[in-house]
């Protein structure tokens, strides 16, 4: 008896320690970022996030174009990836023949395992040439009246980065939404079809709404990936520190600037500014996630989680 209760105590302490390690690590991380960027914080304050120049030589730093690039490239990624991924997930759970489901799901999950530098290389050698020769000119000819599709075409651009990000986050959104849709009780489909709904109507009126908070969760997962992705983006975005309306223009992201300049940061201020960028990236990610959680909470209100309360 003694031994067992001692074991319980040890087990409890060990698990409590494991659980506490997460907030502790987070605390250290934030502290280190803050300590490392103190110099830049002292010089720029919150004006850092509205400054638009990034000049390591003159030691003048502002992060707005980087924040802009991060948010815009992630938005493009979601705008492309969410409908595609949802379409695939709905197809796989509601419409596809049974024998096709497992292989396709497996392939999708395989996509998530490809290292991002490989996506970057594929982007440079395959995607960007195709975009530059065919897709971008076509967009400019058809949608050129919009400011987003005007101006010179370089290839490396905000849009190219957004597209590669879309390809990279699709597997996450797809496989999580597929799981969520699979978990919708068959009785919901039957109820809709019993009312005379087609399979399509049953999917839209019963299955997808039932799964919506899970689907939003899947999108948040993808968004988190898109905000923080570094390698493939820096290889395709053009790495130019400016805010342009046109998606054909190059841009820069917070993650990309840190990866590119950290090893070359020779002055203390440059180093501090890069660390400050990391802190801002952290804050933006937390903020976006918090807003998304709020959205889930609002959407899920009045609905018992995962059940129908029979």
């Amino acid at each position, binding site marked *: 008896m003694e031994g067992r209760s001692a074991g319980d105590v040890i087990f409890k302490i060990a698990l409590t320690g494991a659980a506490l390690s997460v907030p502790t690590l987070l605390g250290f991380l934030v502290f280190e970022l803050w300590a490392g960027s103190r110099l830049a914080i002292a010089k720029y304050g919150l004006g850092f996030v509205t400054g638009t120049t990034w000049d390591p030589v003159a030691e003048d730093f502002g992060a707005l174009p980087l924040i802009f690039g991060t948010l815009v490239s992630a938005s493009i990624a979601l705008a492309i990836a969410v409908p595609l991924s949802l379409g695939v997930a709905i197809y796989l759970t509601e419409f596809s023949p049974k024998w096709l489901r497992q292989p396709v799901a497996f392939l999708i999950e395989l996509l998530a395992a490809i290292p991002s530098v490989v996506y970057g290389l594929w982007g440079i050698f395959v995607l960007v040439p195709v975009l530059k020769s065919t897709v971008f000119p076509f967009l400019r000819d058809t949608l050129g009246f919009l400011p987003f599709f005007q101006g010179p075409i370089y290839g490396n651009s905000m849009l190219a980065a957004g597209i590669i990000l879309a390809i990279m986050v699709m597997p996450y959104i797809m496989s999580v939404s597929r799981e969520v849709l699979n978990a919708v*009780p068959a*009785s*919901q*489909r*039957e*109820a*809709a*079809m*019993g*009312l*005379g*709904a*087609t399979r399509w*109507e049953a999917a839209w*009126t*019963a299955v997808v*709404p*039932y799964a*919506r908070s899970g689907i939003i969760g899947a999108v948040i997962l993808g968004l988190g990936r898109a905000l923080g992705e570094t390698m493939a983006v820096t290889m395709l975005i053009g790495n130019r520190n400016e805010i342009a309306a046109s998606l054909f223009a190059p841009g820069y992201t917070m993650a990309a600037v840190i990866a590119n300049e950290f090893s070359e940061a020779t002055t203390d201020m440059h180093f501090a500014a890069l660390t400050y960028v990391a802190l801002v990236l952290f804050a933006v990610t937390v903020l976006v996630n918090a807003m998304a959680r709020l959205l889930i909470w609002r959407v899920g209100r*009045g*609905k*018992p989680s995962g059940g*129908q*309360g*029979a």
Partner: protein
Amino acid sequence: MTEPPARIAAADLTAYYGTFAAVKNATIGFASNEVHALIGPSGCGKSTFLRTMNRMHEVVGGHVTGSVVLDGQDIYGSKVSLTQLRRRVGMVFQKPTPFPTMSIYQNVAAGLKVGERLSRNDRDARVERALQQAGLWEEVKDRLKASAVALSGGQQQRLCIARTIAPQPEVVLLDEPTASLDPMGTQRIEETLFGLKKDFTIIIVTHNMQQAARVSDTTSFFYIGQMIETGPTKQIFTNPADPQTEAYITGRFG
């Protein structure tokens, strides 16, 4: 005894899942404005038979031979629209299946949206009438915008009945509608059925023989995929023709 003309009738109906025949050569006619109970032990094919009446068994990959005739038309004919059929032959399931993201009103109107376009006033009227027929109107009229899952289990099932009858079907199929409810909820559903038969032809699958005796006008007994006996409920329960029927209703098996 002359049979009244059937509103919906199965003739020599055999229902398969793959090669397994869950129902074999069943022939039953269901008269208008009657409640017909399908009874029998678990796995006897009564639920499958019910689902062949609006082709819901096809959702899980079943098929049939024989015919089901609704108002003179075979519902397994090649020109039949499943959407139209299921609006004419509605179904209520074993567990309440309200759509959890919709309000009470939206749930009842869900079947209306799928079908014809209605003006707002007409739709409101149909929703109110369906809820009244299902005996739920008084309980929910002040909170139509509330979530459907805030209702109790019995209320949810009556909501599902309202949802099924809102498109004004001719036949209403109920698959053990009170199996997951408490005695109070069960009683409310049974009372509701009495009112519903004025407007609909009702076929109910039930495990509960007392329920069959209470609510139905005619009864069919199923055993191992065979329809053993069909007739007026009183006759089936007091003077069954088949010894298997007698054995079941006297509680010797099942």
